[in-house]
């Protein structure tokens, strides 16, 4: 899968052990508690490369995502607030003690 290999930064000839080593290296760089979005992408890419048929079966024939929820999307929206069109003063107002 092109996307999965790109996500893990691998070329087409990577062996299963190289794929696993790269996955573990990336997980160390992007642990789920600090970088959950990136971790989820890395994990999904690894699963896709580890068992492409099963991963494709799930992708094509299961309507309900297994690893997602409305709350998870809402939480990711909040993580992206700082990437949105924020006004300077609203950001700086966060300096006030709660």
């Amino acid at each position, binding site marked *: 899968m092109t996307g999965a290999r790109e996500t893990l930064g691998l070329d087409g000839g990577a062996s299963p052990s190289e794929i696993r080593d790269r996955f573990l290296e990336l997980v160390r760089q992007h642990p789920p508690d600090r970088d959950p979005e990136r971790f989820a992408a890395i994990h999904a890419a690894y699963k896709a490369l580890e068992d492409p048929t099963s991963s494709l079966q799930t992708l*094509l024939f299961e309507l309900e995502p297994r690893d997602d929820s409305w709350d998870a999307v809402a939480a990711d929206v909040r993580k992206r607030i700082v*990437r949105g069109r924020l006004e300077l003063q609203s950001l700086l107002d966060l300096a*006030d003690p*709660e």
Partner: protein
Amino acid sequence: MIDSASERSGSEVERLIAKGRYKEALKQAKIAHKRSGSAADRLRVERLYGLRAGQLVRSGMLDSAREVVDNLLAFGVTAGGWSTDLEWLLVRLGRGRQARRLAVGFAGAEGSARIDVVEADWSVVDPSGAGQAASGEAAGQARLIREALAAILADEPERGLDLLRGLMWNSPLAEWKFFARGLVALRRGDQTSADANWGRLDPSRAASRIVAKLRTIAGASGPPLAESVIDHLEQQAFGAPISDQIRGIGTLALADQWAELIPTLGQLRRALEPTAGALCERLTALALGPLARSVAGLDRARALARVEAFIAVARPLAIDPHWNRFWAFVWDGPHAQKTGTIAYWGHYLEDLDAAARFDPATRDLAKALVWQRIAQGFLAGGGQGVEAALDCLGKSLQLAPDHLPCHRLRLSILEDLGDGARFAEAAGRLLDVAPNDLETLLALVRYYRARGEPGPALDHLLAARRTRPIDRRLVELEDEIQLELELAPDRATLAGQARGRS
């Protein structure tokens, strides 16, 4: 008795603080202090003046907040009640002179320098208000920092960081360089670099306070933050307070309230699409399962109308750009439009041809799986569909010759049909892919025994026994076949050969 009363009163005050009812807590704490005169009760009063003033500031009631800090200054601040939050608040409310006097009293020249830094930070945060007290040099640097941060927020990160190059590292405001670098990193999704820069901030400074709140917003641990503040920021970032709306449509999906859900989803898509298209796709993906279940209970016309209304507002999935896959699922339900389902999977094969997401090998495997799905659709129709199913399975195997489930399905159909020649050919192809496939070997044993050919049956049984050497069922089966061979005099030679092989 007095101690016990004081403890009870203290607990009551702490309970009110925990609920954010600072005004009542302050009143109670003052009564308790008047009664006991204890140092602990005094500290509690000082702390509550600060908490109440902060609360008023957050509500935008600055005059009332000033009144509260003036009352605190009149009450007196002890060393135990002096904190970085209080320094910050006093300068914020225009009481910098009094703050400096107290800071010098508690920490001498160091305290005074500390107030300089607080005033400099305020010149960044609120130059026309509390920041006016900062020195001319600090005010100039603060203007630069604000301009840089505004550029970063306007998606001009290079210009923003460039503006800060002139800010010397020995400036009290150099701290904001780390803040700006972290902000740039976070906006481009590099959390590691953001953490590295923000990890260098002084926790008592304004930039660090902002970072702590951003972490709270992002769901990491941090200081509590009013939902109204987060809603306000979401409003700016996306044009609407959308995380609540997202949770809301989750509830609507559970309650099968599609008349309300569909327009809300449309609003969310408009808000998210420009900056976070992938999130729109996740919303679609989450809604598809409940939608398919929902339309299964409707008559065909209403089901069609609901799906079309949904499709009109939702962002299609990258793997299903024309909704053919979803329509196939919809018509695979109780509406039992098997021919419709098959037609949509057929259209979906064309969509897969254009899917940029897959490399050629993955695309072939995806198409093979869809052909297999179509075959299952024909099989569900029964009758003449069996030949169509076999045709689809043939196409599937052309695309993915090693896909065992497809081989197995084809084999079981041919075995049920009793089509000996095609069965043997299909079994042979399967064994080319998986030579030790026990079920296929045993199917061939059955096939040759039914044809009265114990020789080839024994060959396949022996292959099966090599994969399961101690399986008693296979040992017994071998005995039966050996007997068949011996009972057939014209095949005695074959039996001898078979014994030699075993």
